[in-house]
């Protein structure tokens, strides 16, 4: 995406990012990410697929400003991820939906709004309706199914209307059918504010179905092997899954992983 002054507009930019870990027991240094450069435009969904341990989650943590890269820079809306966090521009959904067990569904949704001082009952109620959990608003997380918990975690991440949405295998712990249902739900929720989204996943079908671009990572240290564009337009539903183009794209991404 290009701005009026000709400069490329980015919601998230990683410039030559490398990240090393030190193994505590042995003192050995391991490189998790190697010279990664990514630019994600506002309103774009980019998936990252790759083998286990290739640094996908490390990349999410760098983008969120939870860790600093060893080499290179990360920026969110042209400022540091730390500043973006202070401005409440980033949301994160992890594989295990972290819902506070002592709060109800509605209270969990209201949590970030209360923290950032933008709490409005109407906003929470609208979101409860939007994620189709009206009848479950007063229930506690332990009373919900895994799929419902993921949906609440997703809704909580979107309720603050962040500029960047980071999804670290958000449906990884769910069965295939629930995962597919939630993918469609994610697109529906995402379309309300369309934040720039980074999705880390093991599921190639999910990645191709949801994203505008799929970045395929190599074994550790993670490098971008190929960037695969998807050209299926904005409207994506079940019928897309069986089209020859979609099947071919999934097969292509899979071939890069093996």
């Amino acid at each position: 995406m290009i701005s009026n002054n000709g400069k490329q507009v980015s919601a998230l930019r990683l410039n030559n990012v490398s990240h090393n870990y030190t193994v505590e027991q042995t003192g050995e240094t391991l490189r998790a990410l190697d010279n990664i450069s990514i630019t994600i435009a506002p309103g774009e969904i980019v998936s990252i697929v790759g083998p286990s341990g290739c640094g996908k989650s490390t990349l999410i943590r760098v983008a969120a400003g939870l860790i600093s890269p060893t080499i290179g820079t990360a920026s969110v809306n042209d400022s540091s991820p730390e500043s973006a966090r202070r401005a409440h521009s980033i949301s994160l959904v992890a594989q295990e939906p972290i819902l506070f067990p002592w709060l109800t569904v509605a209270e969990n949704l209201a949590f970030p709004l209360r923290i950032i001082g933008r709490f409005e009952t109407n906003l929470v109620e609208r979101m409860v309706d939007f994620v189709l959990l009206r009848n479950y608003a007063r229930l506690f997380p332990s009373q919900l199914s895994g799929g419902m918990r993921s949906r609440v975690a997703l809704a909580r991440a979107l309720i603050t209307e962040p500029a960047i949405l980071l999804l670290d295998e958000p449906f990884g712990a769910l069965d295939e059918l629930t995962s597919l249902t939630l993918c469609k739900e994610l697109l529906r929720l995402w379309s309300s504010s369309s934040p720039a989204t980074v999705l880390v996943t093991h599921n190639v079908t999910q990645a191709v179905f949801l994203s505008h671009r799929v970045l395929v990572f190599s074994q550790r240290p993670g490098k971008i092997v190929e960037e695969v564009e998807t050209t299926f337009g904005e409207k994506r539903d079940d019928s897309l899954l069986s089209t020859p183009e979609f099947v071919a794209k999934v097969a292509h991404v899979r071939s890069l992983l093996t």
Partner: protein
Amino acid sequence: MSYNMPDNFIVKVARSQASRIGIPLLVIVSLLLMWEFFVRALNVPAYVLPAPSVILSALHQNLPYYLHHAWVTMLEALVGLSFACLFGVLAAICISLKAGSERTALPLLVAIQAIPIVALAPLMILWFGPGLSSKAVMAALLCFFPMALNTIKGLRAVPVGAIDLLAIYHVPRFTAFRVVILPYALPFVLAGVRISASMAMIGAIVAEYAGANEGLGYLIMQSTYRVDTPLVFGAIVMAALASWLFYGSIILIENTALRRFTHN
């Protein structure tokens, strides 16, 4: 075909409840009857081993006296437990605030726990006098370790994902502690209080042995010196009842708090 499952279910529940309460009760009553029988049959003098009926009579005749001393001991235990809770939790928070400080602090805590604290009782009387303070300090010393250790465990129990979430929303440290970390740690803190409750009573009674003017420990020592064995047994029964009451109250508070803060 009649459907008689609910009746069977009620019968099963009733039987299970009866066996849960009835069998222990039956064992206790049988043991007391055997005790009574042998003491009477063998003509055991009351100053050696009084019969349960004699102990019951001593308890009945001196009830206000026993209640006063039980109240004093419970108050000492409660004050000691409160201080242990306060300082144990504060110590755990300080230790958890700095990464890696557990490695130096934990051996120190274990060293404190390894001291036979009961041996310090005479010193406590010397330093804090024969009143409530010395007993409360003794109870607090016994309870401090389980409180601190359980709180450290609780503070460690916060999932990494929750810590990340707090960082993402840039939650101020004190707010994060109040609204997220404390509720996660609460079940562990309350378990520490539960463990400490019975230790607090032991601490208070042992300190009373070393020197006191009132309390169940004082009563036991005084009655022993006077060879008033029924009164000693009465005081022991009273101490057990007071411990149960103390422990039960803590359990009640724990359950109420857990119902409010956790829904696992």
